[in-house]
């Protein structure tokens, strides 16, 4: 059975594909997609050539911006974003870490003022290479409490 038959094609909107299996629902919540009043199709545990299983989200009538696409780079770096118009892919975003991120994740510092005041969370993001392992280390520094956290800690909190 082909993938197109598993999740119906959309006329206009955004398709987030190659989401790691199990992350689809989290992405919906993080990007507040479920409250946008748009028709959304979520496919979970679909077969993927590269990853075994994947999730997919189709949002009809909403074209993602580059900024929104970059937010995804933090928690689903392998995902791809296709913007669709008249059933054709008109834009494909390459994942890039944003310099800043507003209103997506809460600050993990339980004593940070941003958790109980009328402001959106705001992080400055840096990507350094670990001197020990040579791996990429993504750090997120809260604008308010100025504490720095690894991406994994922020995404999991």
């Amino acid at each position, binding site marked *: 059975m082909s993938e197109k038959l598993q999740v119906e094609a959309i006329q206009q909107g955004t398709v987030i594909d190659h989401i790691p299996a199990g992350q689809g629902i989290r992405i919906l919540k993080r990007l507040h997609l479920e409250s946008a009043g748009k028709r959304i199709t979520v496919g979970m545990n679909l077969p993927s050539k590269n990853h075994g299983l994947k999730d997919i989200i189709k949002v009809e009538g909403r074209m993602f911006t580059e900024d929104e696409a970059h937010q995804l780079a933090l928690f689903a770096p392998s995902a791809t974003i296709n913007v669709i118009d008249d059933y054709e892919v008109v834009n494909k975003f390459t994942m890039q870490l944003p310099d800043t991120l507003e209103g997506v994740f809460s600050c993990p510092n339980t*004593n940070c*003022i941003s958790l109980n005041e009328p402001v959106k969370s705001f992080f400055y993001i840096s990507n350094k290479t670990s001197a020990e392992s040579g791996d990429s280390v993504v750090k997120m520094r809260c604008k308010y*409490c100025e504490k*720095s956290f690894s991406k994994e800690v922020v995404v999991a909190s």
Partner: protein
Amino acid sequence: MTNPLYQKHIVSISDLSREDIELIIKTAARLKQQPEPDLLKGKVIASCFFEASTRTRLSFETAVLRLGGSLVGFDDAGNTSLAKKGETLADSVQVISSYTDAFIMRHPQEGAARLASEFSSVPVINGGDGANQHPTQTLLDLYTIYESQGTLDGLKVALVGDLKYGRTVHSLAQALSKFNCEFYLVAPSALAMPDYIVEDLEEKGVVLHQSDDLEAVIPECDILYMTRVQKERFDQTEYMHVASKFILKASMLANAKSTMKVLHPLPRVDEIEVDVDHTPHAYYFQQAENGVYAREALLALVLKPEFE
């Protein structure tokens, strides 16, 4: 010409450039030498202490009064609308800043001053926000170092005691890294300087020496910045063992440079014995006094456009 700090918020030491710091130090020195009792005449300053801090509050309030300004505010948030009626800090700041010309605040939560700066119509001066920032402490430390050494450049500075939790030493190290200083980090391993600060300093090319031998470091340094090894971080037996290695006694200063000064953010408990007070190296009470001049300088600069 308008000075570069006019109407600026003073939230974090990292917001200040080397030039800003030099301007504040120069202004503090000037106000110490030449008091200006009418400088803030007609200005009303809010002093809002959402948690207790006797020295910082009295120092700020003294600075305002010595410059001829007036004060409104509180030193017990338990009796305010925030505590009694559940008002947000954001709303409190908007209202209080509409009454006043500047907003001095201390708050137990990290990031409170940054948040206040986004809702205040007047300059916010951070008097400490949780474990995060205490920029005026760092500025008075820098002014005191400058006053006692004649420069901030190229000094050898030993930071001693609780380097893990002490925001004072974190901010001081970050600020002095703008002045090519070399650091001796003297701490028990359980209270070592956090990795993220060490990495930040190393990235800036700062020379760091880690040690747990206070006596060996003393002859090397120009400034010996002592902090308290906090008892609650250890069990009683371990504390007795650890703390004894980080207690400064007058006899340990025999080989110190003649110009070396001992600083401490105060209050001290038992990490500096009183016999040190009578040596020419003791400078912590002058340091506390300098808090008033450093805070006078900040208030003057943020409120008087042409004050330089």
